[in-house]
């Protein structure tokens, strides 16, 4: 760590870890409910559990991105953050808004819009919070000595992500229009601007971990994010097949979304190629594992499992089934979950000065969580395919189909237990590093 203000990143990483554990808890509540054990229904009905699971996911990932930005931007811009107290204020307001939102979900205070359940009054606080965050980042970049491509792509991603939140705040009477703009947030985030953030963080980690020349890495970064937008923007059409929107989206959405895996393939090839090319070996091999892991699993979860149901003829049957949940899990985990954990793994020793790169549990944390998540994806796939055939193709009744699927939730819970063991080890390991300290500052 070169700049003292980078320490503020630690708080965001800590929040990320805690919220991830809480998110998983609600995952178990839902998995048991699908198995028929829903004893918590009176206090935490399924819709409260699902809103909490999905929103905590978004918040822990965003908190991880913010921590990453607070760590990366001073380093790249060669300038301290313009204000640490403001960054701390931003941290606490983020944590408080998050907690209030989650409590609200349990008291029927929400909006029934998947992933955007946070009620409108809190949305304004979210916007204020993100504006403060962007102000700190952009001003630091402005005052800094350098504006590298990596830092610009990262900042552009964060800025666009904030702008795209706004269409999700407009009121509509027509359900179709409501849904239309919900996808401007959900789809254009994960298959658009978040890929910029991912590309920026990935490029930073590869520069640090492999020692490959910055110019080479940043050139490919432009190509990858170019592919992202060329395919991903019109690719939004894959959500406009069957919601009351015109038929031309079947053609446009089908063609462009089928090209979306190219950007993820680009990231995977890029990471592996840079790893091979790199001459310097950074001692933090676990961070390298996570970095290569995210590049590869994002291609599998988002790219391959995304394309598996993106053609209109397939999506007609899989739309809104567990096939979607299968893809949602591995895509979020592979692309954004692992990325955040990779960033934390890289930063924790530097922030705390505890240069223990291969803590006993670190390797288990990596393998258990990944094997567990692949198992969960398989269980969701089995449930999803069963559901598609019995309910959509044969026309069996909803509840009969659900009962036929139940065994797959048993497998889901088994795999989720492996996954959770890995995550607990990861979070415990993170906290064992202790708090950031000035002793970790590199002499200038």
């Amino acid at each position: 760590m070169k700049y003292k203000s980078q320490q503020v990143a630690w708080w965001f990483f800590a929040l990320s870890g805690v919220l991830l554990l809480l998110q998983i808890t609600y995952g178990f509540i839902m998995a048991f409910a699908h198995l028929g054990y829903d004893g918590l229904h009176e206090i935490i009905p399924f819709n409260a559990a699902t809103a909490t699971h999905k929103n905590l996911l978004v918040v822990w990932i965003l908190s991880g991105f913010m921590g990453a930005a607070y760590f990366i931007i001073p380093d790249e811009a060669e300038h301290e953050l313009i204000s640490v107290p403001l960054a701390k204020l931003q941290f606490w307001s983020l944590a408080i808004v998050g907690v209030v939102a989650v409590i609200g979900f349990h008291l029927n205070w929400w909006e029934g819009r998947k992933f955007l359940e946070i009620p409108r009054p809190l949305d304004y606080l979210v916007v204020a919070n993100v504006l403060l965050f962007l102000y700190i980042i952009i001003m630091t970049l402005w005052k800094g000595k350098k504006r590298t491509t990596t830092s610009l792509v990262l900042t552009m991603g964060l800025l666009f992500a904030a702008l795209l939140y706004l269409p999700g705040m407009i009121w509509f009477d027509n359900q179709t229009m409501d849904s239309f703009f919900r996808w401007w947030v959900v789809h254009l985030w994960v298959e658009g601007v978040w890929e910029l953030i991912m590309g920026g963080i990935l490029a930073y980690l590869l520069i640090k971990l492999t020692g490959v020349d910055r110019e080479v890495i940043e050139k490919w970064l432009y190509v990858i994010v170019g592919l992202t937008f060329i395919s991903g923007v019109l690719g939004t059409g894959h959500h406009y097949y069957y919601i009351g929107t015109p038929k031309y989206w079947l053609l446009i959405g089908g063609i462009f979304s089928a090209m979306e895996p190219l950007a993820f393939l680009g990231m995977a090839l890029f990471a592996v190629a840079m790893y091979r090319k790199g001459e310097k070996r950074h001692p933090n091999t676990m961070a390298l594992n996570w970095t290569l892991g995210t590049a590869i699993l994002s291609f599998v979860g988002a790219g391959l499992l995304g394309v598996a149901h993106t053609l209109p003829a397939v999506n007609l049957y899989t739309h809104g089934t567990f096939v979607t949940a299968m893809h949602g899990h591995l895509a979020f985990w592979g692309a954004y979950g692992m990325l955040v954990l990779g960033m934390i793994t890289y930063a924790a020793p530097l922030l705390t000065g505890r240069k223990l790169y291969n803590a006993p549990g670190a390797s288990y944390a990596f393998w258990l969580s990944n094997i567990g998540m692949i198992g969960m994806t398989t269980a969701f796939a089995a449930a999803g395919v069963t559901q598609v055939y019995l309910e959509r193709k044969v026309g069996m009744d909803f509840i009969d189909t659900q009962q036929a699927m139940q065994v797959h939730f048993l497998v889901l819970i088994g795999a989720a237990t492996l996954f959770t063991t890995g995550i607990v080890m990861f979070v415990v390991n993170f906290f064992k590093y202790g708090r950031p300290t000035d002793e970790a500052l590199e002499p200038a």
Partner: protein
Amino acid sequence: MLSKNQARAFFLGGTVVFFLIFLGLSWHTLAREVPKQTHEENLTEAVVRGKQIFDKNNCMGCHTILGEGAYYAPELTKAYERKGEAYIKTVLTVKEPWQPRGRKMVAYAMSDQDASDVIAFLKWIGEMDLNGFPPKPDLQSKVPVPAK
């Protein structure tokens, strides 16, 4: 070989061009097509109230509608046609926890008016032109029926 400047031009140019196309198509969809396909002329005040009640209670947190939501309870796009008005009204107004074959629904105990509004909303949803969704079960006729 591609230079860094060319790579940057590819990124910026591609983004701008495709984003503009997307905005144009979105405008066409929302201004010209959605009102027709969703029969906006039938979007009465009752339907709007129904949508708000649907939103306020996060029905999408268990059900899907237009194929979006959670997968704990049945798809509601064609619920009006499938179950009929009387059945849905009972489900929404009943004060006891509702447990059709084990899967629990929240007992909303809605007023008669609220329940009617939600039904109006579901009826309106069910009449949309959804390009063929939900699909007809295409393998049903191929399932052999054993002779008694």
